């Protein structure tokens, strides 16, 4: 069996290259793979396109990644939260691009990328500026927007349990985008709270089958700082 476990976050992200598209799990701070993000900052990669629901929270995680100049473009559904002041500063200075995508469409575009499909039709965004430059397709007399798949060169995922095959579970609502992103990247890099033995996760309880996972490291994030408003 392939050894997917690596020693630390630095080794997990060691293959991330300049200009890569990186899917980043999490919703706000829930399920955000912060240790992997810190390791990415430490590598001083440049020109990343990052995909996350938000555009950073304070000067940690995605905020730090942006603040240290690693990011060329953000694809997200909610760029304007108060806590995303680092993004805001870079955006207003014209140093970073943004693509704003409705949250359900964002999740579905990533799933679509993972599922090897070429696109999907949705009514979300019809008659809004989101529809600009998009194809409108009529099916049975109803109009839909054609939305395209979104894949990453890498996905950064925060899981709860991991076994040696890379099977993953998620802790409560830390699940969010993580399992969807884990299907939609060429390399799936995981930080998990805890490793368990082969066969210790009930096959019916696995959320992300190990075949999607390339590397994992153990970082216990359960003892997180309490939630902050934002």
């Amino acid at each position, binding site marked *: 069996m392939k050894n997917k476990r690596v020693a630390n976050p630095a080794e997990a992200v060691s293959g991330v290259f300049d200009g890569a598209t990186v899917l980043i799990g999490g919703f706000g701070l*829930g399920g955000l793979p912060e240790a992997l993000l810190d390791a990415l900052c430490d590598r001083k990669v440049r020109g990343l396109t990052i995909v996350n629901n938000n555009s950073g929270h304070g000067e940690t995680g995605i905020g730090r990644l942006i603040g240290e100049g690693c990011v060329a473009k953000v694809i997200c559904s909610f760029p304007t939260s108060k806590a995303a002041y680092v993004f805001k500063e870079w*955006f207003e200075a014209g140093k970073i691009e943004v693509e704003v995508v409705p949250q359900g469409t964002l999740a579905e575009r990533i799933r679509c990328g993972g599922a090897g499909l070429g696109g999907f039709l949705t009514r*979300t965004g*019809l008659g809004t*500026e989101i529809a600009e430059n998009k194809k409108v397709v009529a099916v049975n007399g109803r109009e839909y927007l054609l939305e395209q798949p979104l894949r990453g060169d890498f996905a950064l995922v925060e899981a709860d349990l991991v076994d040696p095959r890379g099977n993953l579970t998620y802790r409560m609502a830390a699940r969010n985008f*993580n399992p969807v992103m884990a299907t939609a990247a060429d390399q799936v890099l995981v930080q998990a709270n805890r490793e368990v033995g082969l066969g210790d996760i009930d096959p019916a309880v696995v959320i992300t089958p190990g075949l999607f996972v390339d590397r994992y490291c153990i970082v216990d994030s359960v003892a997180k700082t309490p939630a902050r408003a934002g």
Partner: protein
Amino acid sequence: MKTSIGYTKEQMAQHVADELQEDWVVNVGIGLPLTILPYVPVDKDIIFHSENGIIGMGPELADPAQGDNDLLSAGKRPVSLIPGASFVNHADSFVVVRGGRLDATILGAYQVAENGDLANWKLPGKRLGSMGGAMDIAVGAKRVLIMMTHVTSDGRPKIVKTLSYPATARNCVTKIFTDRAIISVTQRGLVLERLAPGSSVEDVQAMTEPALIISEKLKSS
């Protein structure tokens, strides 16, 4: 225009909370809509859905310091779960939304047009706005309940003939709850259902761009 008359925030919240029926699946937007939660009786079993994959979200924690980042609402605040809650991934969370499984959503708004068009994500002329899940929810929910002040801070109507703000979704709004009135969006047009204390039909019409149809059952209270 007298600003001291009309519904209090508490009364608005109560009206919206009263609209929600037992067993409904409901998504509550961040901001003003969140204020309704304390007005939903604990024994009225409503399934609250949160975009980040919580089905059966319970009340916010009284002490956020006791919160857990892995159990946050869409507004990123620590919440609890009701018995029989479940978690789904983000794509599946929007299967619930677009798949027609939300009986209602409560959203804030900048503008609502006569035909039910909604604007609530971006200010005109701004380069950036955030729709989060609002576009999907406005399209997918069976009932889109809007909670907003009747007019802007400088007194202009927010219920308009045609949106001048960027649209969130078209033809989606079901009912509008403001500090001055409750108005239904129907095929025939906007129907004034209820007037706030101290408001007259004429007052409300004056602060509403499209012509209002007066409900036969118009309540004043």
